[in-house]
């Protein structure tokens, strides 16, 4: 794709725009931090500080400096990895995020795998018989997935599968008792992968058992979105002349929809996948603590409970950057696959 100067210009423009947006995102988090009521100097100096101590605290914290200087210092802090110190863990926010992110990624990726495996076939089935009872059931089902309060869905699934049927565990990433008989080698910080790499089958079973319920909960939203999207896109392409030609050539309806129409629908479905990835990351805030899942969601929920502003803003910034990067990746991949986009 990069053989063409136009394509290079396109890619350069997208990357530059993404950088501008990231800079804006950093400024916006600075503004939010600045909105925090109360005087940071007073918090720093303690409740019984004298006027002189307050003044010294203001000096030390740089609150007397003009706004552009403070924003500049904030920027260089973010760029050099100084994202502030969490109030409730007393650790640097960036290292907290680094510790918590793998568990959340594991959960969200598992959820997206489920969402694709469920959403695309349902969307295709609905598009095959539009207006039928099956279509209506699938459409209502997908709206149900999109409208689901995930924190409530988590409780309901726990009640049914863990408390009533006793078939699945509710808390943690694996059964800690297994550590005695089948110790887990920590290579990737993701227990499922560690167990798989080291051939620790008992542990692998335990990690998968623990993953099912939270992943199902997080999958409800992306599954609904993907089913809706697939249905709409496939119905759109069915009207195109080349798809009609395939149909008139006598290909089976399954092949027309599943192979030829879906081929065109893949592009927007892939785009939506990158976007629901970011939305699912945020949904883990509501779900992880219910499952004792040691990820970003539990960390954020704990930070919210402790009014830990540096931690909340750090996570906000982190996910916004992931979101911008995911969008950029989608744009570039789409442009590489579809020349019409980069010629615009």
């Amino acid at each position: 794709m990069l053989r063409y100067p136009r394509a290079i210009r396109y890619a350069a423009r997208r990357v530059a725009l993404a950088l501008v947006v990231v800079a804006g995102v950093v400024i916006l988090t600075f503004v939010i931090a600045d909105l925090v009521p109360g005087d940071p100097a007073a918090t720093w100096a303690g409740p019984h500080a004298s006027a002189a101590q307050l003044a010294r605290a203001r000096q030390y914290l740089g609150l007397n400096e003009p706004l552009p200087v403070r924003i500049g210092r904030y920027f260089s802090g973010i760029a050099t990895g100084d994202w502030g110190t969490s109030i409730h863990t007393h650790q640097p926010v960036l290292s907290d995020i680094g510790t918590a992110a793998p568990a959340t990624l594991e959960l969200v990726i598992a959820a997206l795998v489920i969402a694709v495996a469920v959403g695309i076939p349902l969307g295709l089935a609905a598009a095959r018989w539009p207006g039928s009872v099956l279509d209506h059931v699938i459409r209502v089902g997908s709206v149900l997935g999109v409208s689901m309060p995930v924190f409530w869905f988590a409780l309901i699934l726990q009640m049914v599968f863990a408390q009533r049927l006793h078939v699945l565990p509710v808390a943690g990433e694996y059964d800690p008792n297994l550590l005695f008989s089948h110790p887990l080698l920590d290579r990737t910080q993701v227990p499922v992968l560690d167990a798989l790499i080291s051939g620790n089958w008992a542990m692998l079973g335990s990690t998968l058992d623990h993953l099912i319920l939270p992943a199902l909960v997080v999958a409800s939203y992306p599954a609904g979105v993907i089913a809706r999207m697939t249905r709409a896109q496939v119905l759109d392409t069915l009207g195109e002349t080349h798809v009609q030609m395939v149909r008139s050539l006598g290909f089976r309806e399954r092949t027309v929809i599943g192979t030829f129409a879906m081929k065109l629908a893949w592009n927007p479905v892939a785009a939506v996948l990158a976007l629901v990835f970011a939305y699912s990351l945020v949904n883990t805030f509501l779900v992880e603590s219910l499952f004792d899942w040691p990820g970003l969601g539990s960390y954020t929920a704990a930070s919210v409970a402790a009014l830990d502003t540096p931690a909340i803003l750090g996570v906000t910034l982190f996910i916004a950057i992931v979101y911008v990067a995911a969008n950029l990746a989608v744009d570039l991949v789409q442009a590489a696959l579809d020349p019409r986009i980069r010629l615009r």
Partner: protein
Amino acid sequence: MTSLRQAARQNPIITAGAVIVGLIVIVAVLAPLLAPAPADAGAAVHPENALQAPSLHHLFGTDQVGRDVFSRVLYGARVSPLVAFLVLLIACAIGVPLGVTAGYFGGVTDEIIMRVTDIFLAFPSLLLALAFAAVIQPASLTSLTIAIAVTWWPWYARLIRGQAASVAGRPYVEACTALGLPRWRILLRHVLPNSLTPLLVQVSLDAGGVILTSSALSFLGLGAQDPVPDWGLMVAEGENYFSTQWWLATFPGLAILVTALAFTMLGDGLRDALDPKRLGDPVKVALR
């Protein structure tokens, strides 16, 4: 209107959505008449009735201080739907003027306004609302409403800008300009009214999303505080008792689901009826 009626006949989903939304509005208005124990929607305490299972007397059981959960769920129809209404109103009040200005005048104004919306749209809306809600203390329904509205307006500025830009290029608007009408008059009388239909569709589609967002923030403790009968807060309070007293969290959560579902079905149907070509970027539309 005829197209709406037609759509309702062809599409049972829009009818179902409209009926449920109508029922929710009726419940919200008539809550004092329908609820068996209106005082329980507030700070009433009946320790002798605490944590009773659902029965004929208490349809949805009672909570940890003995309040009737059924009454609280009915009164909940006055909380998050009202928050959603206010959020959408504020978001339109900010987004529409900015969007119409950007779309009609273009140039530097347009460039600045659109770059600002780019930044807001770089966050999943629940995430940015959470960050705002966390710093506006103390948490209340007001702080919650402000936090969500602040994150919601860029969608409408975007949408209206696209509409206004396309309307501004139409011959009848050029005719007005040629006649020498003042620009603000063209903006208010011709560009704005002709840009609004897709906004109405989007607003009705978004109501469910705002209800989910506000419930989620209340669940995290960033919105309504006890004794407000907010559904999200009730799920959070019920979570502690969930293993033994399932009814505390189950019914309020079901109310959130049904409400969000009804608004989304209605919005979907409205979109199919009013805007068969589908608005804007299909990816973004599917997401909201």
